[in-house]
């Protein structure tokens, strides 16, 4: 769907992107992660053809990115904004027409969206008369009205209250299920794990990690497990097939420990070792959250 190859972008005095490559597959929800100033917005602006890269190429469905693709991309920038003194209806029609929709078609689609999101009464209102959350909702509609193949959302959930964030999330998922590819940038790791199929992590103008969420997590598995058992507290003398990392809790005969498997040992062997000694209530692999991976990778670079 979107193939970003070796993008370099320099501004006077600093490098925003140095040789970033990404592959976004059709139908994916792709998360672009990274701390502030990592180059996310620069990359998004290049994909939107707002700025051009110094070198590198971008392919959209196999074609070199060009002006004709603008109508197939929808973009919600991080800094939201609409014309304050223009009526919502007129403004939405204008933005849709800039994306190549006809006037009649944009009115037809707007009516559907306004109804869906409970915005029917807003048509004649001016943006400045709406609350911030309402403005965001309107802008989201403007972003997707022309039914783009690729929807680019920069920090889509910032500024929404939890109820509206949920509504928007559902809309994003629905659009995705209808076939739209979604590329969004965020700091909110929980939304990444909830929504994304794949991610890329940018830091200091470089891509430091990318891939499918599951693959990334697999590579970050490090054979750490949490075990809960009931009964006498066990003492480990070194003969056990794992290393005790932490005694997490001992509450009224319920004990929680964190262990790391020794090399070439499976969790089954751990169970086999422990079952004769105590009553196991839980064994769970500790898979690092995206947040931990994020922090770990970013810190490693420093």
């Amino acid at each position: 769907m979107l193939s970003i190859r070796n993008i370099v972008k320099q501004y006077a005095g600093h490098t925003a992107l140095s040789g970033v490559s990404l592959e976004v597959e059709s139908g994916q929800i792709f998360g672009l992660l990274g701390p502030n100033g990592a180059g996310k917005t620069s990359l998004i602006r290049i994909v939107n053809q707002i700025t051009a890269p110094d070198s590198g190429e971008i392919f959209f469905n196999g074609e070199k990115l060009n002006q004709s693709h603008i109508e197939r991309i929808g973009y919600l920038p991080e800094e939201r904004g609409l014309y304050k003194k223009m009526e919502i209806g007129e403004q939405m029609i204008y933005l849709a027409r800039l994306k190549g929709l006809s006037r009649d078609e944009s009115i037809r689609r707007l009516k559907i969206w306004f109804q869906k999101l409970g915005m029917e009464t807003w048509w004649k209102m001016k943006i400045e008369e709406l609350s911030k959350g309402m403005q965001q909702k309107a802008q989201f509609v403007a972003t997707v009205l022309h039914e783009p193949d690729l929807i680019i959302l920069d920090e889509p959930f910032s500024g929404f209250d939890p109820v509206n964030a949920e509504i928007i999330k559902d809309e994003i998922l629905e659009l995705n299920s209808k076939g739209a590819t979604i590329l969004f940038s965020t700091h909110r790791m929980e939304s990444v794990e909830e929504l994304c199929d794949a991610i890329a992590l940018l830091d200091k103008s470089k891509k430091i990690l990318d891939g499918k969420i599951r693959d990334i997590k697999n590579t970050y598995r490090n054979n750490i497990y949490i075990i809960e058992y009931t009964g006498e507290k066990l003492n480990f003398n070194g003969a056990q097939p794992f290393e005790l990392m932490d005694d997490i809790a001992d509450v009224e005969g319920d004990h929680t420990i964190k262990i790391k498997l020794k090399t070439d040992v499976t969790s089954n062997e751990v169970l086999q070792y422990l079952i004769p000694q105590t009553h196991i209530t839980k064994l769970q692999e500790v898979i690092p959250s995206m947040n931990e991976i994020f922090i770990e990778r970013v810190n490693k670079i420093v």
Partner: protein
Amino acid sequence: MNKILLIIQREYVTRVRKKSFVIMTLLVPALFAAMYAVIALVAGDKDQTMHIVNVIDQSGDFRGKFHDQRFIKYNYLDESLASAKADLKNENDLLLRIPANTKDTAELFAKKKTTLSLADNIQNQMNDIATGVSLVKAGIDTVSLHKIKSNYTIKSTELTEKGEKSTSMGATYALAFAGAVLIYMSLFIYGAQVMRGVIEEKTSRIIEVIVSSVKPFQLMTGKIVGVGLVGLTQFVLWISLSAGISYALGHDASSVKSPIYSFIHNMGSNASYELMCFLFYWITGFLFYSALFAAVGSAVDSETETQQFMFPITLPLLFTYILSVSYLFTVPDSPLAFWLSIIPFTAPVAMMVRIPFNVPDWQLYLSMFLMIVGFIFTTYVASRIYRVGILMYGKKASYKELAKWFFYKE
């Protein structure tokens, strides 16, 4: 191209729909009508009270020689000055004492301050009479003298290639003056509108949505053209409304000729030529300056920050404007006027001053050519600053910064 049209349409429609546009459009002709009414009032407000001038002629030369006029009647007294003064009761009556010696000053007494025109009137008659009397005393026949006395007034006629044409110097000056003022004001008013539009898009942050759909250059061009059309619309409405009002008033108060009518009449056969020139310099001047205004708007975060960049833009205009209305129109063919009307920065104002005085064709064409080159150049420079500036927030731009932006690659 289609998208530029959409942008032009939006810029135009939202501005024309604004209350301020409607108010301005109606207010200016209304002011004009009010001014017109005041002129009519002033013109009709002649001194209409009857004055009786009581003459005490101590020289004896003036008795019976003053001509009564519509509102001034002369009456000759034989009393002494003191008793005549005491008798002067009516506050519109006057007392004129003419001394025996013509070298002494005559005196005019009245209960009220006499108006200047009244005193002038009396003084002129006195001088005429005194001259007549002296001529007679010197033995010159006043009747034959009146026959040969000439009464010249000047009517100026300009010799042009198209033949002779009558001109009124007053109207020509007025035309030069009006052209310069109109161009100067509208460059500022509509240039500032472009700038405010750019700042509005930047501060409301809609800019990023728009430039993901169209190129910054398209947006800038659309905005400039849209605002320019608003300006032209306003001008057309002003002129037609003003003409309409003065036409209507002209019918009511037939004693005063409509100023617009007489103005257009005085422009004579050159009206269309002058109008075309005005339009040309209005359009190119607007394009020239509004591009710069757009660049300034893109470089700042709010209108209050525009000062430092506005100054160098407005300076040449202000300079030419002040020179034009105070000096240039008296010497429209001077080298200074020539150079100012050639350099695109100052040409729109300076050339408007010169046009009523018949500019040589080659100078006009050179100036027009440079105007076109000039606005293409400023648009190019401005668009390069603009495309970077609109996406820069929170950074206080310096001139050095602007120069850097200019050299950025896409």
